């Protein structure tokens, strides 16, 4: 990892830790926790879409799958450590198989979008139709559109009666997000991440250099699935119920909106986009004057038209321009370097 990147990551982490400690005095931790979970979900798509160039219309599938895997395992096992890992492993494996099917079939662009969308729909319809008592995994009934309530939420490893909840659960989620962020930064700085970005830029050229593009895309896609699954696992613990709505198209749509508004090609962009938009939706949901869907739609249209780069990259660019103006007039090359640096955030 280059020195400047280490510094940047460190700065982001320090700011994030301060924000994590200050935020509970502004917003209640229950709401904050779900904002963080959504941030992680957005990060998963931000990684595979922004850096891998894979537009997945079904990121919600992995989110829901993680939550369901956790809930089912927790009912059967009763202690949350193994279910927690299951909740990450199942979506990882599912994304790996799905990704292998798509990338080894050389699907791209719109077709990728359709397949991921369709797979999400299949899961949604299937889970919705499992209301009958014959749909049982171990001791857990799938419950159809009612979802699965009443499973063991997150506990301190080894002691099922020592729940992690409320404020400690908030810190747990926040630290999990920071760890995932740092790991993803490290992954992107590693040769694997560099080649992933190269594939996004020019797949054919990377292939001609001798790299196995299909395998690398599959792995990146699976990692994105695992992060979304982790978000789902945490969400299950937060909501204490999992429902088919987690697989819904509107959930998938929202993840894409977060990424595009926050800024693609960055990692902090999607996270911040998710938190701001989800909080906005929460605030809008508390009043009845405006329909929240209407405003979200408006935000999406306007941001595609006027902020196609997203909020974070635009702000970073503005910031670097202001910085430039204050200092001595710099050459175009440094401006370009700053722009690139801003895209690394």
């Amino acid at each position, binding site marked *: 990892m280059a020195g400047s990147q280490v510094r940047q990551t460190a700065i982001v982490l320090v700011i994030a830790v301060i924000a994590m400690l200050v935020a509970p005095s502004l917003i209640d931790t229950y709401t904050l926790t779900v904002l963080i979970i959504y941030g992680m979900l957005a990060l998963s798509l931000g990684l595979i879409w922004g850096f891998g160039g894979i537009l997945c219309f079904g990121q919600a599938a992995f989110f829901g799958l993680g939550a369901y895997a956790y809930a089912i395992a927790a009912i059967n096992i009763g202690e949350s450590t193994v279910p927690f890992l299951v909740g990450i492993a199942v979506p990882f494996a599912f994304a790996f198989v799905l990704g292998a099917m798509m990338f080894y079939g050389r699907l791209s662009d719109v077709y990728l979008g359709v397949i991921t969308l369709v797979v999400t729909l299949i899961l949604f319809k299937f889970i919705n139709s499992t209301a009958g008592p014959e749909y049982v995994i171990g001791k857990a009934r799938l419950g159809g559109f009612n979802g699965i309530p009443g499973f063991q939420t997150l506990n301190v490893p080894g002691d099922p009666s020592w729940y992690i909840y409320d404020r400690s659960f908030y810190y747990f989620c926040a630290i999990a997000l920071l760890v995932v962020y740092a790991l993803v930064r490290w992954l992107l700085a590693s040769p694997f991440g560099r080649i992933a970005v190269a594939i996004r830029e020019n797949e054919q050229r990377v292939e001609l250099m001798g790299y196995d593009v299909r395998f690398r895309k599959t792995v990146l896609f699976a990692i994105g699935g695992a992060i979304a699954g982790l978000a789902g696992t945490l969400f299950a613990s937060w909501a204490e119920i999992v429902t088919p709505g987690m697989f819904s198209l509107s959930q998938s749509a929202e993840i894409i909106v977060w990424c595009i508004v926050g800024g693609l090609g960055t990692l902090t962009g999607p996270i911040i986009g998710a938190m701001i938009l989800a909080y906005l939706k929460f605030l809008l949901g508390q009043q009845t004057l405006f*329909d929240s869907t209407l405003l979200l739609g408006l*935000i999406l249209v306007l941001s595609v038209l006027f902020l196609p780069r997203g909020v974070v990259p635009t702000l970073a660019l503005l910031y670097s321009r202001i910085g430039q103006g204050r200092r001595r007039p710099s050459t175009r090359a440094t401006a370009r370097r700053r722009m690139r640096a801003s895209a690394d955030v």
Partner: protein
Amino acid sequence: MPGNQGQNVDLAIVVAIQVIYSIALLVLISAGLAIVFGMMRVINLAHGEFMMVGGYATIVAVNAGVNIYIAMLIVAPLAVGILGLLIERLVIRFLYGRLVDTMLATWGLSLLLIGLVTLIFGNTTTGISPPIEGFPIGAYQVNGYNLFVIVITIVMVLAIWAVLSGTRWGLIARGTMQRSDMASALGYSPDRVYMITFFAGSALTGLAGGVLAPLVGLVPTSGTQFIAKAFITVISGGASVIAGLLSSATLFGLVSQLFTFSINPMVGEIALLVAAVILLRLLPQGITGRFFRGSM
């Protein structure tokens, strides 16, 4: 027994009608999207909401005393066509050539439309009753309105084909889609052609929404149930507008009805989706990317 045999024949007819109806339904709900995607490479994710608006336009018109056929076949297409025209001028024309951005912007539009319609009509189900009575075939009851949907779909496909291949306007439109620079050099404004094509696609979508209005209880979120199916049908069909639409709708209609009759409607729905995944895995360019190449 002769009676038993007669019943079997009746059943066969009923099943055949049902299968053709489900194919027609897929064609009807996808046609507008196919025009816009096949001709302009724009994926309109607000397609379902366009249909929903068409449905509301029909119901409002009928409640205002307009004849139901005029409402479905004229008012709804016009209303949605004008809506599409507005959206094309205000949003989509800035995004031509940016496939993903148009998808996102139209997704935003779909949310916006849902919100607006909720604001105006409230989140309650409205509906009108089908104007055609059912009739019996042997021991089975057949929904007469389904036959009307089939007829409308056939007329619509024939009309699209006639316009695209038989009229000067269709020629200009196809030419512009292939080489907009050439068309522009010959004196046709691509901007205007795109605008009119989008209007036509929207109007067809409005027609579909109007025709389906008596069949579904309309709520502002009704559109979402159509968009996925329409999207899948159009993409699986591939680049050719009519051949792609017909071939993929036929395939998916057959598959879903086969599983609906042999197991249940739920499995039928899932089978349709699984078929789409397998199809796209085998034919990544859609059906007309491999077969019927160069057809319309």
